[in-house]
């Protein structure tokens, strides 16, 4: 019955609009990805061999890059907003004498400050906003609407078990919503193939499959929720009202309030903006990094609590486009900076005074640590996304059990 809906021109119209929107976003994200990758390659070429022209150990600056995954064109996340290049000076300032900091990250992404407020949607946010809403519109009258029309009484007068009715509705709606989702993914794959093409590797396909899996879980959770509410109310209007209130809370209010809630957890006097005027000290640098870690983990924990933020978080973790991927990159780069520091200390013991005393002879660069970024493996990404996936599973389970309980005790009489 619900599959017939997919042939309805109104449903097709809504899907076409979503696809159009998604197509536009995907093209835009692909263009931005190419632009950033080009900038990263250029930067990498310029930094290549930089270390071999150093004549004093102060000039040995290592650079490590975090190439973005092609999946960021699907799930943009924070992308390269927090930096994809880390510069390490070990014992010395990267931009000395102007800046004493021995470790710096920088972004190659240009965010036009004048375009704040123009909503840029990626796959996970489209699913979050539209598919959850579509799920609600499909389910709000699934049980109570049938009761209003008298169909439920008729249906239950036959030997159809109640749970079968619930699962029948569920499967029909899930398939109805999965069809446009499949088309979206297919469209994205076509856009990636369009010149300049952006090929995916084997692991990317596995990540994509998991993102699709999380999306199915998320949509399924909303269908269960809709059926539960529909089976707990007597009129379809009440059901729709209740579901829309839940939708607004889960999809809009909670995710947008998160940064404020996290910032509220900061101690009085602590600040989230960089201390531009405070003189940099290694202790202050470490304290700020620890504070950023604390903020990130608080944010992460708050995201696990709710299925909507959990869904976005799990997709971004799989696409390696979340703040967690950035934290991993910075942690690795900071560790390598420590290695470089140790290497410099050793070399300066061997060649005292060569930190700044200029000699036009090449430096001894033996055993110099090689800067590299180890991207997250699929298992590690899954590990990170696990609490969010558990939340999605619990969301489904609660919706399913709640729906079953409600339908078992539902009275079909007018």
């Amino acid at each position, binding site marked *: 019955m619900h599959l017939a809906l997919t042939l309805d021109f*109104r*449903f097709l119209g*809504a899907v076409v*609009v*979503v696809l159009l*929107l998604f197509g*536009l*976003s995907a093209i*835009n994200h692909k*263009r931005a990805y190419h*632009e950033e990758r080009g*900038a990263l390659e*250029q*930067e990498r070429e310029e930094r290549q061999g930089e270390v071999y022209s150093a004549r004093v150990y102060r000039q040995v600056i290592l650079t490590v890059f975090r190439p973005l995954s092609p999946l960021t064109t699907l799930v943009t996340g924070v992308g390269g907003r*927090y*930096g994809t290049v880390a510069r390490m000076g070990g014992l010395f300032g990267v931009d000395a004498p102007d800046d004493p*900091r021995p470790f*710096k*990250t*920088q*972004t*190659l*992404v*240009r*965010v*036009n*400050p*004048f375009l*704040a*407020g*123009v*909503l*840029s*949607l990626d796959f996970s946010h489209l699913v979050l906003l539209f598919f959850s809403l579509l799920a609600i519109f499909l389910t709000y009258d699934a049980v109570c609407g049938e009761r209003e029309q008298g169909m439920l009484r008729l249906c239950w007068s036959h030997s159809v078990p109640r749970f079968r009715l619930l699962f029948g509705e569920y499967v029909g709606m899930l398939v109805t919503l999965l069809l446009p989702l499949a088309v979206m993914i297919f469209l994205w794959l076509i856009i990636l193939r369009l010149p300049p093409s952006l090929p995916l590797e084997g692991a990317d396909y596995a990540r994509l499959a998991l993102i699709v899996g999380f999306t199915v879980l998320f949509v399924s959770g909303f269908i269960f929720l809709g059926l539960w509410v529909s089976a707990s109310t007597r*009129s379809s*209007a009440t059901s*729709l*009202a209740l579901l*829309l*209130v839940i939708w*607004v809370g889960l999809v*809009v*209010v909670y995710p*947008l*309030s*998160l*940064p*404020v809630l996290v910032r*509220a957890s900061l101690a009085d006097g602590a*600040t*989230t*903006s*960089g201390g*531009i*005027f405070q003189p940099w000290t290694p202790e202050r640098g470490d304290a700020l990094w620890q504070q950023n870690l604390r*903020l*990130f983990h608080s*944010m992460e924990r708050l995201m696990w609590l709710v299925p909507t933020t959990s869904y976005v978080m799990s997709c971004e973790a799989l696409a390696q486009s979340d*703040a967690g991927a*950035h934290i991993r990159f910075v942690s690795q780069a900071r560790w390598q900076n420590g290695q470089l520091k140790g290497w410099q200390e050793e070399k300066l013991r061997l060649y005292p005074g060569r930190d700044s005393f200029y000699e036009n002879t090449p430096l001894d660069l033996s055993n110099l640590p090689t800067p590299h970024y180890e991207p997250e493996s699929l298992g590690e990404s899954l590990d990170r996304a696990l609490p969010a996936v558990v939340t999605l599973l619990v969301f489904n389970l609660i919706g399913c059990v709640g729906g079953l309980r409600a339908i078992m005790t539902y009275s079909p009489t007018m």
Partner: protein
Amino acid sequence: MLMLLVAKEIQKRFYDLRFFLLLAVSLVMGITATAISMREYRHRHGEYVRLRSQAEQQTTLDRTYVVKPPNPLLFIRDGEQDAPILLKMEPAILHYVESADTTERPPIETAIPFDWAFLIVYVYSFLAVLMTYDSVVGEKQSGTLPLVLAGSCRRWTVILACFIGNVVVLWVPLLLTVGLSLLMILLVGQIELGAREWLRIGIALMLSGLFITIMGAVGLFASTVFYRASTALVVSLILWIGMVIVFPNGVRLAVESWGRVPSLHELQENLEGARRVKWGGLSLSGELLWAAVTYPGLTESQREKLIAAVQAKTYADHEQVLEKFAVTTGQILASYHREVSQQAERIRLFSRFSPAFSYQFALEGMIPAGYVRHAQFLAAAERYLDSYTTVARRLRQLLRPQARVEGGFTRFTYKGKVYQLNGIEKISYAHVPFDRSQLPRFQMPLPSLSEAAVGAAWDILALILWTGLLFVGTCVAFLRYDVRA
């Protein structure tokens, strides 16, 4: 008759559950958004006070900083979360853009501000469409409309009453939400509101009402055109998605694809080019000194005078190079900023065909907030740069002997005597005490209401035109309605 029909429409809507849904969602979200914005304002105000006091302490004749005060009406429209609040300036150089350095950036930023504009554009307008989509078509389906039209009621009276009734019903939750939010702001007292702010809040409320009227009219239009409620719902939702999301995103995509702005990397390259020119100009050639030292037929004192003249010329040349470098750097940054803002202007120009964005731009112009406010801050910073540069240059000339000069030298020995030519690479006044009262104070004046109205005129006009267009469209569709269909 008109009043009777309006009362009937209002009564019908008031008893509809969707009205309570709209009211509940609007109140919950409005109050949450206001609470979050108040907290955000307190946070930004604290940052502003801290940064301003530090900026004052750090001001020297080499550099100064300007800090953007927070917008007290950010609960209505923010839109400045990606814009820098602190700009560094040196004589002739305004650093428009935040540096690419992200080392200390907290990883919890959100790209979407939770303010009234967001609530009204993305949630309230959606619920407004849901409220009105079955206003006429519901009566068509239930058979009430043909009965009403069979009486002595004129068609235009019926549709006008329907329009007015729906608008009134849509305005009620808006007024209640705004009223409660303002009451909350007054009670908490974190944001101080003067008469000017109250006037602007009033205008923002009118604009919000106008926008809600448009979105309600979208539903009403679909309701009048179609004969099935479900068709009217889907068509109005498609119109909503098109106006609120697809069109502005499409415009952004098109403009960003066709009108490319130089990347941060290109900007860095241009700046590096200017640095290379500077270092080329500051390179010391011993040829002039050599010529002065070996010039034949000069007495010792004449030779010393000639060497001193060569030294003085080198200093003057280098100071000129440094001056020119500052001007070139300033021009590169200004040109980059121009291109970025021109791109944003182009996007805004075409986006305003969507009522959702005309509304946001009109709000930004009238409050002011977002792009408009940041552009005003930059304009004020440019004016301040001019006066700071003038004063700093004058004081630098007066205090030149106290300046710390760094630079290289070239040296050679001739007939057992060592000759040295010094250059200048950097002249620092950072440690030189000076009378700070001579420096101008940075001010960011709020434009008058008439100036703001002129700036937002096109957007307000677009909103009025949309209302008129949809009203006329609805009336025409209703007048052509065939009761037999």
